[in-house]
């Protein structure tokens, strides 16, 4: 008897280690993600690497709802981890994927997610080479959680780290901010609104490759996900023991994102992104880097949004469009959980 991909649901046996589980793994995961390393069928993938520096990263994806304009938890779980590898100044090589499934989750939805994940992995050229599936009782999870890990090889001569920002450095964002978080909110129960806003979820490693070619001396790369640009810059200021000064007028924000934020009382600086990066580079690299980013399809809206300053208080501040200046603190306001 086949798995019922139309009206079937995840059952506890699909995680029990028996033949039902083997069938789910074969028919769904192995078939969607197929590549020589995964197909070897071991509990681990084996591959050859050159000597050098590597990065490893992981992220859990618990986004709610699972499907949203511009993506789903599957594509997000690929993009997010590919990006965290790339933000290490590295070329992503391989991904692993751990699924936690809730009993009763529709197999059709699972297939849709896995298919989207496979497409994102193929598009990025970063295969999923090993994985794991667990099933928990109904009411002990929320449909699907995915945890991906990624490894990659650091580009020669590149050294990025959150503690490398120096006063005088320039802060660049690769495009419009807030798109992902607002797209999620637009389909959250109780908040629903109609808009053309789509998540920006995408893999940024090709943009990073272009960037490190043009400016191998760039200091910091970071994707402003949870907590948005504000949280990320505060983290970086903290790690580098510097202050930062943003220019509100320079922030690229889509009008609809701005509108949704007004409607909901949010500040786009705190809204999550999943296809944007922040880069901090020496001032002499900034123009060249910006030009290269803008010439890249993933960086067309890139903008210099501020600079690093010396500040013992490690404040991130922003010159408002009115000539005022305010602190851009970490988020402490409304709760917008499960954004990634």
């Amino acid at each position, binding site marked *: 008897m086949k798995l019922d991909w139309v009206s079937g649901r995840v059952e506890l046996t699909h995680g029990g280690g028996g033949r039902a589980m083997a069938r789910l793994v074969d028919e769904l995961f192995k078939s969607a993600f197929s590549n020589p390393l995964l197909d070897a069928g071991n509990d681990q993938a084996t591959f050859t690497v050159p000597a050098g520096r590597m990065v490893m990263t992981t992220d859990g994806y618990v986004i709610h709802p699972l499907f949203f304009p511009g993506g789903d938890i599957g594509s997000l779980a690929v993009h997010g981890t590919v990006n965290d590898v790339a933000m290490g100044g590295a070329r992503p090589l391989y991904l692993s994927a751990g699924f936690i499934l809730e009993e009763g989750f529709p197999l059709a939805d699972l297939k849709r997610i896995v298919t989207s994940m496979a497409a994102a992995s193929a598009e990025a050229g970063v295969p999923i080479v090993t994985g794991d599936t667990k099933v928990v009782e109904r009411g002990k999870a929320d449909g699907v959680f995915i945890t991906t890990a990624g490894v990659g090889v650091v580009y020669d001569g590149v050294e990025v780290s959150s503690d490398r920002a120096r006063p005088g450095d320039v802060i660049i964002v690769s495009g419009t901010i807030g798109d992902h978080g607002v797209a999620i909110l637009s389909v959250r129960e*109780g*908040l629903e609104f109609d808009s053309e806003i789509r998540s920006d979820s995408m893999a940024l490693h090709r943009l990073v490759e272009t960037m490190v070619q043009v400016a191998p001396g760039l200091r910091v790369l970071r994707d402003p996900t949870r907590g948005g640009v504000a949280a990320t810059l505060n983290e970086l200021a903290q790690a580098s023991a510097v202050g930062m000064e943003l220019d509100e*007028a320079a922030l690229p924000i889509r*009008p609809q994102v*701005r*509108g949704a934020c*007004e409607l*909901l*009382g949010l*500040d786009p600086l705190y809204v999550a992104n999943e296809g944007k990066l922040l880069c901090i580079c020496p001032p002499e690299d900034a123009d060249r880097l910006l030009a290269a980013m803008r010439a890249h399809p993933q960086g067309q809206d890139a903008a210099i949004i501020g600079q690093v300053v010396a500040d013992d*208080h490690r*404040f991130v*501040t922003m010159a*408002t*469009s*009115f*000539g*005022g*200046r*305010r*602190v851009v*603190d*970490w988020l*402490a*306001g*409304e*709760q917008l959980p499960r954004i990634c």
Partner: protein
Amino acid sequence: MKYVDEYRDGAKAREIAAVIGAEVQPGRRYNIMDFCGGHTHSIARFGLEDLLPPSVRLIHGPGCPVCVLPTGRIDSAIELARRPDVILCSYGDMLRVPGSGRDSLLKAKADGASVRIVYSTLDALKVARQNPDKTVVFFAIGFETTTPPSALALLQAHAEGLENFALFCNHVMTPPAMRAILTSEERVPLEGVIGPGHVSVITGSQVYQPFAEQWQLPIVISGFEPLDLLQAILMLVRQVNNGRAEVENQYARALQQDGNPKARQVIEQVFTLRPSFEWRGFGALPDSALSIRPEFAAFDAEARFALPYRSVPDHKACACAEIVRGLKRPQDCRIFGTACTPDHPVGSCMVSSEGACAAHWAYGRFRDQQQGAAQ
């Protein structure tokens, strides 16, 4: 965004600020209370204080409903939420407000209490329809602006026989708070008041006439965009300069003199004056708040769950009581920014983005440090 962008023009803001700077008279003091939390928030968000001349001092008023709600009321909300038969629906701002001890709705939620953040009372009604086996209590707080949505929700529940819906009513009114400020013995010296724009959209502007007259106090009701506020400040400066004390309406695009009679009629239908209500900072103020009319007692969480009110003293170190009355500034609180931060608020003023302490954290703190560094 129409009606927004044109009021956020930075260049124009500096022009108006320059006019204000030019028009303030040497030696004169312009202590202006921004009564409404929405104004407090805009002032901080757009950094307006940096644009104003030193003689124009903005004093945050009691118009943040989160700030003036006393701890005892938070405790009651937490008590309701912890009941297994109750789902408490609340606007998001209330979740981090400290109750007694270290409790809060957020903590209660983590402990297993059912607390749902809603954007609108419409959503609370939905929750009630979806959970017929629970009583869904909406934690109704706010000034006159936020009262009609609560009233309409109750009427809607009544109309459709949604018997598992109730309001925990904490709606308060603006004029009694303004009166309390002005009659306080330790009254802060004020040259003018920025009147609450959205409250007035409901009440009309005439409710402030007696204050202007009795205390010879210039009042300008203002919109919430930076140009609105700067214009209102300019109008106040001019009243002061000219020795006038009038109620002026800067927010004419949204506010007709008579307000919204239909909204007031809905309020009237559902609510009645509460003889006395405790406010943080002011203590019990007579006729300052609303309760649900006896004919709707079935939808009144206080009646339904026989909730007694217990007054609870504020945290010893917290200066919120003085801050909401304009007597102290956040930086005068000795635990501001140390024990009390937006992550771990000790007082209510550190919670809502409309609260004076939260606003100062996000804005003035930086200025304090710079001043500190300059010294």
